[in-house]
Protein backbone atom coordinates (compact mmCIF):
# COMPACT_ATOMS: atom_id res chain seq x y z
CA UNK A 1 0.00 0.00 0.00
CA UNK A 2 1.17 3.51 -0.72
CA UNK A 3 1.78 5.81 2.24
CA UNK A 4 -0.80 8.50 3.02
CA UNK A 5 -0.42 11.64 0.89
CA UNK A 6 1.13 14.67 2.63
CA UNK A 7 -1.03 17.81 2.64
CA UNK A 8 0.10 21.26 3.80
CA UNK A 9 -2.46 23.64 5.32
CA UNK A 10 -2.37 27.25 6.52
CA UNK A 11 -3.79 30.72 6.07
CA UNK A 12 -1.86 32.56 3.42
CA UNK A 13 -0.10 35.90 3.77
CA UNK A 14 -1.06 38.26 6.55
CA UNK A 15 -4.44 36.71 7.32
CA UNK A 16 -4.72 35.66 10.96
CA UNK A 17 -8.14 33.98 10.78
CA UNK A 18 -7.05 30.57 11.91
CA UNK A 19 -10.36 28.72 12.45
CA UNK A 20 -10.80 27.77 8.79
CA UNK A 21 -7.43 26.14 8.44
CA UNK A 22 -7.92 24.31 11.75
CA UNK A 23 -11.18 22.82 10.51
CA UNK A 24 -9.52 21.85 7.23
CA UNK A 25 -6.55 20.25 9.01
CA UNK A 26 -8.81 18.29 11.33
CA UNK A 27 -10.94 16.98 8.49
CA UNK A 28 -7.84 15.92 6.54
CA UNK A 29 -6.40 14.10 9.54
CA UNK A 30 -9.71 12.32 10.13
CA UNK A 31 -9.65 11.24 6.50
CA UNK A 32 -6.24 9.62 7.05
CA UNK A 33 -3.96 12.15 5.40
CA UNK A 34 -0.53 13.14 6.69
CA UNK A 35 -1.09 16.81 7.55
CA UNK A 36 1.59 19.49 7.95
CA UNK A 37 -0.40 22.29 9.61
CA UNK A 38 1.45 25.61 9.36
CA UNK A 39 -1.29 27.61 11.10
CA UNK A 40 -1.83 31.26 10.42
CA UNK A 41 0.03 33.93 8.47
CA UNK A 42 2.10 31.64 6.30
CA UNK A 43 4.07 33.41 3.60
CA UNK A 44 3.90 32.00 0.04
CA UNK A 45 7.66 31.33 0.28
CA UNK A 46 7.14 29.24 3.41
CA UNK A 47 4.49 27.12 1.68
CA UNK A 48 7.01 26.49 -1.09
CA UNK A 49 10.01 25.56 1.05
CA UNK A 50 7.91 23.36 3.34
CA UNK A 51 6.41 21.58 0.32
CA UNK A 52 9.93 20.88 -0.96
CA UNK A 53 11.23 19.55 2.33
CA UNK A 54 8.18 17.39 3.13
CA UNK A 55 7.68 16.22 -0.44
CA UNK A 56 4.06 17.32 -0.17
CA UNK A 57 1.34 16.18 -2.55
CA UNK A 58 -1.07 19.08 -2.07
CA UNK A 59 -1.38 22.50 -0.46
CA UNK A 60 -4.74 23.64 0.92
CA UNK A 61 -4.71 27.36 1.69
CA UNK A 62 -7.43 29.34 3.37
CA UNK A 63 -8.04 33.08 3.54
CA UNK A 64 -10.86 35.08 5.04
CA UNK A 65 -9.87 38.72 5.02
CA UNK A 66 -10.28 39.30 1.29
CA UNK A 67 -6.67 40.09 0.41
CA UNK A 68 -5.50 36.65 -0.78
CA UNK A 69 -4.84 37.85 -4.30
CA UNK A 70 -2.40 40.45 -3.03
CA UNK A 71 -0.69 37.92 -0.75
CA UNK A 72 -0.28 35.47 -3.61
CA UNK A 73 1.20 37.83 -6.17
CA UNK A 74 3.79 35.97 -8.22
CA UNK A 75 3.08 32.68 -6.41
CA UNK A 76 2.72 30.55 -9.52
CA UNK A 77 6.08 31.64 -10.93
CA UNK A 78 7.79 30.99 -7.62
CA UNK A 79 6.41 27.49 -7.20
CA UNK A 80 7.24 26.55 -10.78
CA UNK A 81 10.78 27.79 -10.19
CA UNK A 82 10.95 25.65 -7.05
CA UNK A 83 10.03 22.52 -9.00
CA UNK A 84 6.60 22.14 -7.44
CA UNK A 85 4.50 22.14 -10.61
CA UNK A 86 3.18 18.73 -9.65
CA UNK A 87 1.81 19.74 -6.25
CA UNK A 88 -1.97 20.06 -6.14
CA UNK A 89 -3.13 23.55 -5.09
CA UNK A 90 -6.47 24.40 -3.49
CA UNK A 91 -7.65 27.64 -1.93
CA UNK A 92 -10.89 28.48 -0.20
CA UNK A 93 -12.56 31.14 1.89
CA UNK A 94 -13.57 34.74 1.54
CA UNK A 95 -11.20 35.48 -1.30
CA UNK A 96 -12.11 39.04 -2.21
CA UNK A 97 -13.70 41.85 -0.21
CA UNK A 98 -17.48 42.09 0.02
CA UNK A 99 -20.13 39.90 -1.57
CA UNK A 100 -18.90 38.41 -4.81
CA UNK A 101 -19.75 36.04 -7.55
CA UNK A 102 -17.50 32.97 -7.18
CA UNK A 103 -17.72 32.32 -10.93
CA UNK A 104 -16.00 35.65 -11.51
CA UNK A 105 -13.29 35.12 -8.90
CA UNK A 106 -12.41 31.54 -9.75
CA UNK A 107 -10.50 32.24 -13.00
CA UNK A 108 -8.37 34.87 -11.26
CA UNK A 109 -7.10 32.29 -8.79
CA UNK A 110 -6.77 29.61 -11.45
CA UNK A 111 -4.39 31.99 -13.18
CA UNK A 112 -2.32 32.01 -10.00
CA UNK A 113 -1.91 28.26 -10.38
CA UNK A 114 -4.71 26.93 -8.20
CA UNK A 115 -6.39 23.74 -9.34
CA UNK A 116 -9.56 24.35 -7.36
CA UNK A 117 -11.07 27.48 -5.83
CA UNK A 118 -13.81 27.35 -3.22
CA UNK A 119 -16.28 30.00 -2.03
CA UNK A 120 -17.10 30.65 1.67
CA UNK A 121 -19.04 28.00 3.60
CA UNK A 122 -17.75 25.10 1.51
CA UNK A 123 -18.20 21.64 3.04
CA UNK A 124 -14.61 20.45 3.50
CA UNK A 125 -15.58 16.80 4.01
CA UNK A 126 -17.37 16.80 0.67
CA UNK A 127 -14.34 18.46 -0.96
CA UNK A 128 -12.00 15.77 0.38
CA UNK A 129 -14.25 12.95 -0.79
CA UNK A 130 -15.28 14.27 -4.18
CA UNK A 131 -12.35 16.42 -5.32
CA UNK A 132 -9.16 15.88 -3.37
CA UNK A 133 -9.11 12.08 -3.49
CA UNK A 134 -10.04 12.11 -7.16
CA UNK A 135 -7.35 14.64 -8.07
CA UNK A 136 -4.68 12.81 -6.07
CA UNK A 137 -5.61 9.52 -7.70
CA UNK A 138 -5.50 11.13 -11.13
CA UNK A 139 -1.92 12.17 -10.41
CA UNK A 140 -0.97 8.77 -9.08
CA UNK A 141 -0.48 10.11 -5.56
CA UNK A 142 -3.01 7.81 -3.93
Amino acid at each position, binding site marked *: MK*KAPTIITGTVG*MDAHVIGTKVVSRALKDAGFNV*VALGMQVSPEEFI*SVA*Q*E*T*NADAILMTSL*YGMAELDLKGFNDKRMEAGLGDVLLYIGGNLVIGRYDPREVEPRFKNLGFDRVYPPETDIVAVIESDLKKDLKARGKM
Partner: protein
Amino acid sequence: MDNIRLLIDFGSTFTKVVAVDLTKEEIVATARVPSTVESDITVGLGEALRKIEENTGIGNLEEKEALACSSAAGGLRMVCAGFVPELTSKAANLAALGAGAKVVGYYSYKLTQKEAREIEASAPDIVLLAGGTDGGDEKVIIHNAEMLSRTGKNITNIIIAGNKTTHDDIKAILRENSKNVIYTKNVMPEIGTLDVAPCNREIRELFMKNIIEAKGIARAKAIIKDVIMPTPSAVLEAARLLADGRDGDKGFGALIVIDVGGATTDVHSIADGKPARPDTIVAGLPEPYEKRTVEGDLGLKYNLDRLTELCKDRETPPGFEEIVRSFHEGKLPQTEEEIACHRLLTCLTVEAAVSRHAGRIEVVYSPTGERLVQYGKDLTGVKTVIGTGGPVIFSDNSREILSHALYREENPFILKPKNPYFYVDAEYILYAVGLLSQTDPKRALNLARKYLKRI
Protein backbone atom coordinates in the same frame (compact mmCIF):
# COMPACT_ATOMS: atom_id res chain seq x y z
CA MET B 1 45.55 15.81 50.91
CA ASP B 2 45.33 18.03 47.88
CA ASN B 3 42.58 17.47 45.45
CA ILE B 4 44.03 18.84 42.24
CA ARG B 5 42.35 18.55 38.86
CA LEU B 6 44.07 19.56 35.63
CA LEU B 7 42.02 21.15 32.87
CA ILE B 8 43.75 21.37 29.54
CA ASP B 9 43.06 23.09 26.23
CA PHE B 10 45.13 22.03 23.25
CA GLY B 11 44.77 25.13 21.09
CA SER B 12 46.17 25.66 17.62
CA THR B 13 48.80 28.07 18.95
CA PHE B 14 48.90 27.53 22.71
CA THR B 15 48.42 24.63 25.07
CA LYS B 16 46.78 25.98 28.21
CA VAL B 17 46.59 24.22 31.53
CA VAL B 18 44.62 25.28 34.59
CA ALA B 19 45.26 23.45 37.85
CA VAL B 20 42.27 23.66 40.16
CA ASP B 21 41.98 22.73 43.82
CA LEU B 22 38.57 21.12 44.00
CA THR B 23 38.28 21.24 47.79
CA LYS B 24 39.03 24.93 48.07
CA GLU B 25 37.38 25.61 44.71
CA GLU B 26 40.19 27.80 43.52
CA ILE B 27 42.79 28.07 40.78
CA VAL B 28 46.19 26.88 41.98
CA ALA B 29 48.19 27.69 38.87
CA THR B 30 47.89 28.28 35.15
CA ALA B 31 50.38 27.73 32.36
CA ARG B 32 50.50 28.57 28.68
CA VAL B 33 53.06 27.08 26.32
CA PRO B 34 53.29 26.80 22.52
CA SER B 35 51.39 23.80 21.17
CA THR B 36 53.38 20.94 19.69
CA VAL B 37 50.69 19.08 17.76
CA GLU B 38 52.73 19.01 14.58
CA SER B 39 55.52 16.98 16.16
CA ASP B 40 54.37 15.38 19.40
CA ILE B 41 51.59 16.85 21.46
CA THR B 42 52.98 15.42 24.71
CA VAL B 43 56.11 17.61 24.53
CA GLY B 44 54.19 20.85 25.00
CA LEU B 45 51.94 19.32 27.61
CA GLY B 46 54.94 18.03 29.56
CA GLU B 47 56.47 21.47 29.49
CA ALA B 48 53.26 23.08 30.78
CA LEU B 49 53.07 20.58 33.62
CA ARG B 50 56.70 21.25 34.58
CA LYS B 51 55.94 24.96 34.71
CA ILE B 52 53.06 24.33 37.08
CA GLU B 53 55.20 22.08 39.25
CA GLU B 54 57.85 24.78 39.47
CA ASN B 55 55.31 27.43 40.44
CA THR B 56 53.39 25.44 42.99
CA GLY B 57 55.74 22.77 44.24
CA ILE B 58 53.06 20.16 43.66
CA GLY B 59 54.68 17.02 42.35
CA ASN B 60 53.48 14.00 40.37
CA LEU B 61 51.10 16.07 38.25
CA GLU B 62 50.93 13.29 35.69
CA GLU B 63 49.04 11.21 38.21
CA LYS B 64 46.36 13.81 38.80
CA GLU B 65 43.05 13.49 37.10
CA ALA B 66 42.92 15.57 33.97
CA LEU B 67 40.34 16.53 31.37
CA ALA B 68 41.16 18.11 28.05
CA CYS B 69 39.54 19.75 25.08
CA SER B 70 41.15 20.55 21.77
CA SER B 71 40.94 22.91 18.84
CA ALA B 72 44.39 21.94 17.57
CA ALA B 73 45.13 20.69 14.08
CA GLY B 74 42.37 22.81 12.59
CA GLY B 75 39.75 21.98 15.21
CA LEU B 76 36.77 19.82 14.27
CA ARG B 77 36.19 20.59 10.60
CA MET B 78 32.76 19.77 9.17
CA VAL B 79 30.83 20.10 5.95
CA CYS B 80 27.02 20.29 6.12
CA ALA B 81 24.66 19.50 3.27
CA GLY B 82 20.88 19.75 3.45
CA PHE B 83 17.95 20.40 1.15
CA VAL B 84 16.23 23.82 1.49
CA PRO B 85 18.68 26.51 2.70
CA GLU B 86 16.48 27.94 5.44
CA LEU B 87 15.22 24.53 6.63
CA THR B 88 17.33 21.33 6.75
CA SER B 89 20.56 23.01 5.60
CA LYS B 90 20.25 25.51 8.38
CA ALA B 91 19.31 22.79 10.87
CA ALA B 92 22.43 20.79 9.93
CA ASN B 93 24.56 23.89 10.29
CA LEU B 94 23.14 24.65 13.73
CA ALA B 95 23.77 21.05 14.80
CA ALA B 96 27.42 21.15 13.69
CA LEU B 97 28.08 24.51 15.30
CA GLY B 98 26.39 23.40 18.52
CA ALA B 99 28.78 20.44 18.67
CA GLY B 100 31.74 22.81 18.54
CA ALA B 101 32.65 22.26 14.91
CA LYS B 102 34.08 24.66 12.41
CA VAL B 103 31.82 24.52 9.36
CA VAL B 104 34.15 24.63 6.36
CA GLY B 105 31.47 24.03 3.76
CA TYR B 106 27.73 24.54 3.63
CA TYR B 107 25.54 23.19 0.81
CA SER B 108 21.89 23.03 -0.18
CA TYR B 109 19.86 21.01 -2.73
CA LYS B 110 21.41 18.21 -4.79
CA LEU B 111 25.20 18.33 -4.77
CA THR B 112 26.83 18.80 -8.14
CA GLN B 113 30.00 16.99 -9.16
CA LYS B 114 31.89 20.22 -8.75
CA GLU B 115 30.57 20.64 -5.22
CA ALA B 116 31.44 17.04 -4.36
CA ARG B 117 34.98 17.65 -5.58
CA GLU B 118 35.08 20.82 -3.50
CA ILE B 119 34.04 18.87 -0.40
CA GLU B 120 36.64 16.23 -1.10
CA ALA B 121 39.33 18.87 -1.54
CA SER B 122 38.46 20.49 1.78
CA ALA B 123 39.03 17.12 3.54
CA PRO B 124 36.59 17.65 6.40
CA ASP B 125 36.70 15.48 9.51
CA ILE B 126 32.97 14.82 9.19
CA VAL B 127 30.35 15.35 6.50
CA LEU B 128 26.86 15.84 7.92
CA LEU B 129 24.00 15.00 5.56
CA ALA B 130 20.48 16.23 6.26
CA GLY B 131 17.47 16.64 3.99
CA GLY B 132 13.77 15.96 4.15
CA THR B 133 11.52 15.78 7.17
CA ASP B 134 10.78 12.23 8.39
CA GLY B 135 8.55 10.82 5.66
CA GLY B 136 9.28 13.84 3.50
CA ASP B 137 11.65 14.37 0.60
CA GLU B 138 13.97 11.45 -0.18
CA LYS B 139 15.54 12.44 -3.48
CA VAL B 140 18.03 15.02 -2.27
CA ILE B 141 19.69 13.14 0.59
CA ILE B 142 19.90 9.91 -1.41
CA HIS B 143 21.46 11.77 -4.32
CA ASN B 144 23.94 13.42 -1.97
CA ALA B 145 24.86 10.10 -0.36
CA GLU B 146 25.48 8.76 -3.87
CA MET B 147 27.76 11.70 -4.65
CA LEU B 148 29.73 11.06 -1.45
CA SER B 149 30.01 7.35 -2.20
CA ARG B 150 32.17 8.26 -5.19
CA THR B 151 34.63 10.33 -3.15
CA GLY B 152 38.03 9.08 -2.06
CA LYS B 153 39.91 8.76 1.19
CA ASN B 154 39.60 12.45 2.06
CA ILE B 155 36.09 11.78 3.31
CA THR B 156 35.96 9.07 5.96
CA ASN B 157 33.27 10.03 8.45
CA ILE B 158 29.68 10.66 7.38
CA ILE B 159 26.74 11.34 9.68
CA ILE B 160 23.27 10.85 8.23
CA ALA B 161 20.72 13.02 10.04
CA GLY B 162 17.95 13.44 7.50
CA ASN B 163 14.68 11.77 6.54
CA LYS B 164 14.76 8.44 8.36
CA THR B 165 12.90 6.58 5.65
CA THR B 166 16.00 6.91 3.45
CA HIS B 167 18.36 5.05 5.83
CA ASP B 168 18.00 1.68 4.12
CA ASP B 169 18.57 3.12 0.66
CA ILE B 170 21.62 5.02 1.87
CA LYS B 171 22.98 1.91 3.55
CA ALA B 172 22.71 0.08 0.25
CA ILE B 173 24.55 2.91 -1.52
CA LEU B 174 27.39 3.16 0.98
CA ARG B 175 27.69 -0.55 1.76
CA GLU B 176 30.59 -1.19 -0.61
CA ASN B 177 32.44 1.78 0.84
CA SER B 178 35.08 1.77 3.52
CA LYS B 179 33.60 4.95 4.94
CA ASN B 180 32.49 5.19 8.54
CA VAL B 181 28.77 6.03 8.29
CA ILE B 182 26.66 6.88 11.33
CA TYR B 183 22.88 7.07 11.26
CA THR B 184 21.15 9.29 13.76
CA LYS B 185 17.85 11.09 14.28
CA ASN B 186 16.68 13.68 11.80
CA VAL B 187 17.84 17.20 12.76
CA MET B 188 14.45 18.42 11.49
CA PRO B 189 11.99 15.55 11.99
CA GLU B 190 9.05 17.75 11.10
CA ILE B 191 8.50 21.31 9.99
CA GLY B 192 9.03 23.71 12.87
CA THR B 193 10.93 21.19 15.04
CA LEU B 194 14.67 21.25 15.49
CA ASP B 195 16.17 18.16 17.16
CA VAL B 196 19.93 18.60 17.19
CA ALA B 197 20.85 16.88 20.48
CA PRO B 198 21.18 13.28 19.14
CA CYS B 199 23.27 14.54 16.22
CA ASN B 200 25.44 16.57 18.61
CA ARG B 201 26.13 13.47 20.66
CA GLU B 202 27.21 11.48 17.61
CA ILE B 203 29.54 14.27 16.49
CA ARG B 204 31.19 14.44 19.89
CA GLU B 205 31.47 10.66 20.11
CA LEU B 206 33.14 10.55 16.71
CA PHE B 207 35.48 13.33 17.74
CA MET B 208 36.56 11.41 20.84
CA LYS B 209 36.82 8.02 19.17
CA ASN B 210 38.29 8.70 15.73
CA ILE B 211 39.17 12.27 15.01
CA ILE B 212 41.60 13.04 17.81
CA GLU B 213 43.38 9.82 16.86
CA ALA B 214 43.75 10.92 13.25
CA LYS B 215 45.07 14.31 14.30
CA GLY B 216 47.68 12.98 16.69
CA ILE B 217 45.93 14.51 19.67
CA ALA B 218 45.23 11.12 21.17
CA ARG B 219 48.91 10.77 21.97
CA ALA B 220 48.18 12.99 24.95
CA LYS B 221 46.46 9.97 26.43
CA ALA B 222 49.93 8.77 27.38
CA ILE B 223 49.78 11.46 30.05
CA ILE B 224 46.13 12.25 30.64
CA LYS B 225 42.96 10.24 30.61
CA ASP B 226 40.94 11.63 27.75
CA VAL B 227 40.33 14.44 25.34
CA ILE B 228 36.62 14.77 25.69
CA MET B 229 35.42 17.53 23.39
CA PRO B 230 36.28 20.29 20.94
CA THR B 231 37.17 23.54 22.74
CA PRO B 232 34.16 25.55 21.49
CA SER B 233 31.96 22.82 22.85
CA ALA B 234 33.60 23.20 26.29
CA VAL B 235 32.84 26.92 26.20
CA LEU B 236 29.23 26.17 25.27
CA GLU B 237 28.98 23.69 28.17
CA ALA B 238 30.28 26.40 30.52
CA ALA B 239 27.76 28.89 29.14
CA ARG B 240 24.90 26.44 29.69
CA LEU B 241 26.01 25.67 33.26
CA LEU B 242 26.28 29.39 34.07
CA ALA B 243 22.85 30.12 32.61
CA ASP B 244 20.94 27.21 34.11
CA GLY B 245 22.77 26.87 37.45
CA ARG B 246 22.98 23.69 39.49
CA ASP B 247 21.88 22.28 42.84
CA GLY B 248 20.11 25.25 44.37
CA ASP B 249 22.24 27.83 42.58
CA LYS B 250 19.90 29.31 40.01
CA GLY B 251 22.72 30.49 37.78
CA PHE B 252 22.85 33.73 35.81
CA GLY B 253 19.76 33.10 33.70
CA ALA B 254 19.74 33.88 29.97
CA LEU B 255 23.19 34.94 28.83
CA ILE B 256 25.54 35.59 25.93
CA VAL B 257 29.21 34.60 25.72
CA ILE B 258 31.39 36.41 23.18
CA ASP B 259 34.69 34.73 22.38
CA VAL B 260 36.93 36.90 20.22
CA GLY B 261 39.86 35.10 18.67
CA GLY B 262 42.62 35.59 16.16
CA ALA B 263 40.87 33.93 13.24
CA THR B 264 37.21 33.72 14.24
CA THR B 265 34.73 35.11 16.72
CA ASP B 266 32.24 32.81 18.45
CA VAL B 267 28.99 33.95 20.00
CA HIS B 268 26.99 31.64 22.25
CA SER B 269 23.54 32.50 23.53
CA ILE B 270 21.69 30.48 26.13
CA ALA B 271 18.21 31.93 25.96
CA ASP B 272 14.81 30.95 24.62
CA GLY B 273 14.69 34.12 22.52
CA LYS B 274 10.89 34.47 22.57
CA PRO B 275 9.52 37.79 21.31
CA ALA B 276 9.34 40.58 23.90
CA ARG B 277 6.08 41.82 22.35
CA PRO B 278 3.20 39.36 22.22
CA ASP B 279 1.88 40.67 18.89
CA THR B 280 5.10 39.70 17.10
CA ILE B 281 4.87 36.85 14.60
CA VAL B 282 7.83 34.43 14.73
CA ALA B 283 8.92 33.22 11.29
CA GLY B 284 11.49 30.74 10.04
CA LEU B 285 13.10 27.75 11.69
CA PRO B 286 12.99 27.94 15.50
CA GLU B 287 16.53 28.44 16.81
CA PRO B 288 17.98 26.32 19.61
CA TYR B 289 17.98 27.40 23.26
CA GLU B 290 21.75 26.93 23.16
CA LYS B 291 22.86 28.63 20.00
CA ARG B 292 26.40 29.06 18.77
CA THR B 293 27.50 31.05 15.75
CA VAL B 294 31.00 31.36 14.37
CA GLU B 295 32.07 34.37 12.35
CA GLY B 296 34.87 33.10 10.15
CA ASP B 297 35.59 36.55 8.74
CA LEU B 298 35.98 38.29 12.09
CA GLY B 299 39.29 37.72 13.84
CA LEU B 300 41.85 40.10 15.24
CA LYS B 301 44.87 38.44 13.69
CA TYR B 302 43.97 36.80 10.39
CA ASN B 303 41.03 38.90 9.26
CA LEU B 304 42.28 42.45 9.57
CA ASP B 305 41.27 43.34 6.00
CA ARG B 306 37.64 42.58 6.66
CA LEU B 307 37.76 44.58 9.89
CA THR B 308 39.30 47.61 8.23
CA GLU B 309 36.47 47.46 5.74
CA LEU B 310 34.00 47.77 8.64
CA CYS B 311 35.87 50.91 9.76
CA LYS B 312 35.28 52.71 6.47
CA ASP B 313 32.52 55.00 7.63
CA ARG B 314 33.78 55.44 11.17
CA GLU B 315 36.04 57.93 12.80
CA THR B 316 39.44 56.33 13.24
CA PRO B 317 42.32 57.34 15.56
CA PRO B 318 45.32 59.13 14.01
CA GLY B 319 47.70 56.89 12.08
CA PHE B 320 45.05 54.14 11.94
CA GLU B 321 45.93 52.69 8.56
CA GLU B 322 49.63 52.55 9.23
CA ILE B 323 49.12 50.92 12.61
CA VAL B 324 46.79 48.26 11.18
CA ARG B 325 49.44 47.54 8.57
CA SER B 326 51.90 46.90 11.38
CA PHE B 327 49.40 44.49 12.99
CA HIS B 328 49.37 42.66 9.66
CA GLU B 329 53.06 42.11 10.06
CA GLY B 330 52.49 40.52 13.43
CA LYS B 331 53.17 43.53 15.65
CA LEU B 332 51.36 43.52 18.99
CA PRO B 333 49.74 46.73 20.19
CA GLN B 334 52.04 48.61 22.58
CA THR B 335 51.84 52.36 22.19
CA GLU B 336 48.75 54.25 23.24
CA GLU B 337 47.73 54.80 19.61
CA GLU B 338 48.20 51.16 18.75
CA ILE B 339 46.15 50.05 21.72
CA ALA B 340 43.38 52.47 20.70
CA CYS B 341 43.35 51.05 17.17
CA HIS B 342 43.30 47.48 18.40
CA ARG B 343 40.43 48.30 20.74
CA LEU B 344 38.44 49.88 17.92
CA LEU B 345 38.89 46.77 15.81
CA THR B 346 37.80 44.56 18.69
CA CYS B 347 34.74 46.74 19.30
CA LEU B 348 33.69 46.39 15.66
CA THR B 349 34.25 42.64 15.78
CA VAL B 350 31.96 42.32 18.78
CA GLU B 351 29.35 44.57 17.21
CA ALA B 352 29.28 42.66 13.93
CA ALA B 353 29.38 39.19 15.52
CA VAL B 354 26.54 39.86 17.98
CA SER B 355 24.45 41.59 15.33
CA ARG B 356 24.66 38.52 13.15
CA HIS B 357 23.92 36.17 16.04
CA ALA B 358 20.90 38.05 17.39
CA GLY B 359 17.46 37.81 15.85
CA ARG B 360 15.91 40.63 13.87
CA ILE B 361 12.54 42.22 13.41
CA GLU B 362 11.08 43.01 10.03
CA VAL B 363 8.14 45.32 9.67
CA VAL B 364 5.72 43.98 7.09
CA TYR B 365 3.07 46.28 5.69
CA SER B 366 -0.03 44.25 5.13
CA PRO B 367 -3.53 45.11 3.99
CA THR B 368 -4.54 45.11 7.67
CA GLY B 369 -1.73 47.38 8.85
CA GLU B 370 1.80 47.04 10.15
CA ARG B 371 2.99 43.66 11.42
CA LEU B 372 6.20 42.76 13.24
CA VAL B 373 7.84 39.56 12.08
CA GLN B 374 10.72 38.13 14.13
CA TYR B 375 13.46 35.95 12.66
CA GLY B 376 15.86 34.28 15.11
CA LYS B 377 16.18 34.96 18.82
CA ASP B 378 15.07 38.07 20.70
CA LEU B 379 17.97 38.75 23.08
CA THR B 380 16.86 42.21 24.24
CA GLY B 381 16.00 40.90 27.71
CA VAL B 382 19.31 39.06 28.29
CA LYS B 383 20.87 40.30 31.51
CA THR B 384 24.38 38.80 31.34
CA VAL B 385 27.05 39.31 28.69
CA ILE B 386 30.39 37.54 29.21
CA GLY B 387 33.49 38.34 27.21
CA THR B 388 36.39 35.96 26.65
CA GLY B 389 39.30 35.49 24.24
CA GLY B 390 42.61 37.36 24.27
CA PRO B 391 41.55 40.66 22.64
CA VAL B 392 38.76 41.11 25.23
CA ILE B 393 40.52 39.73 28.32
CA PHE B 394 43.79 41.57 27.85
CA SER B 395 42.23 44.88 26.76
CA ASP B 396 42.57 47.96 28.96
CA ASN B 397 38.87 48.64 28.46
CA SER B 398 36.92 45.40 28.17
CA ARG B 399 33.73 47.18 29.14
CA GLU B 400 33.86 49.50 26.17
CA ILE B 401 34.43 46.51 23.91
CA LEU B 402 31.54 44.50 25.32
CA SER B 403 29.21 47.49 25.25
CA HIS B 404 29.30 47.10 21.46
CA ALA B 405 27.07 44.07 21.96
CA LEU B 406 24.26 46.38 23.05
CA TYR B 407 20.94 47.14 21.36
CA ARG B 408 20.99 50.44 19.51
CA GLU B 409 18.17 52.90 19.13
CA GLU B 410 19.46 53.79 15.65
CA ASN B 411 18.85 50.23 14.56
CA PRO B 412 15.93 48.94 16.60
CA PHE B 413 15.43 45.95 14.30
CA ILE B 414 18.38 43.95 15.66
CA LEU B 415 17.39 42.28 18.91
CA LYS B 416 20.54 42.67 21.01
CA PRO B 417 20.59 42.98 24.83
CA LYS B 418 19.30 46.28 26.16
CA ASN B 419 20.55 46.48 29.70
CA PRO B 420 22.87 43.64 30.71
CA TYR B 421 25.64 43.29 33.28
CA PHE B 422 29.06 42.73 31.75
CA TYR B 423 31.58 40.14 32.89
CA VAL B 424 35.04 39.32 31.64
CA ASP B 425 36.66 35.89 31.83
CA ALA B 426 39.74 37.48 33.39
CA GLU B 427 41.53 34.21 34.20
CA TYR B 428 40.71 32.57 30.87
CA ILE B 429 38.94 29.66 32.54
CA LEU B 430 35.62 29.30 30.69
CA TYR B 431 36.80 26.24 28.76
CA ALA B 432 38.02 24.75 32.07
CA VAL B 433 34.63 25.38 33.67
CA GLY B 434 33.01 23.57 30.75
CA LEU B 435 35.33 20.58 31.12
CA LEU B 436 34.88 20.41 34.88
CA SER B 437 31.09 20.69 34.48
CA GLN B 438 31.15 17.16 33.04
CA THR B 439 32.23 15.65 36.35
CA ASP B 440 31.74 18.31 39.10
CA PRO B 441 29.13 20.76 37.86
CA LYS B 442 28.48 22.48 41.19
CA ARG B 443 32.19 23.10 41.78
CA ALA B 444 32.63 24.28 38.22
CA LEU B 445 29.85 26.79 38.75
CA ASN B 446 31.34 28.05 42.03
CA LEU B 447 34.68 28.44 40.32
CA ALA B 448 33.14 30.50 37.53
CA ARG B 449 31.30 32.67 40.02
CA LYS B 450 34.56 33.30 41.83
CA TYR B 451 36.69 34.15 38.82
CA LEU B 452 34.39 35.87 36.34
CA LYS B 453 34.96 39.57 36.85
CA ARG B 454 32.02 41.96 36.75
CA ILE B 455 33.01 45.12 34.87
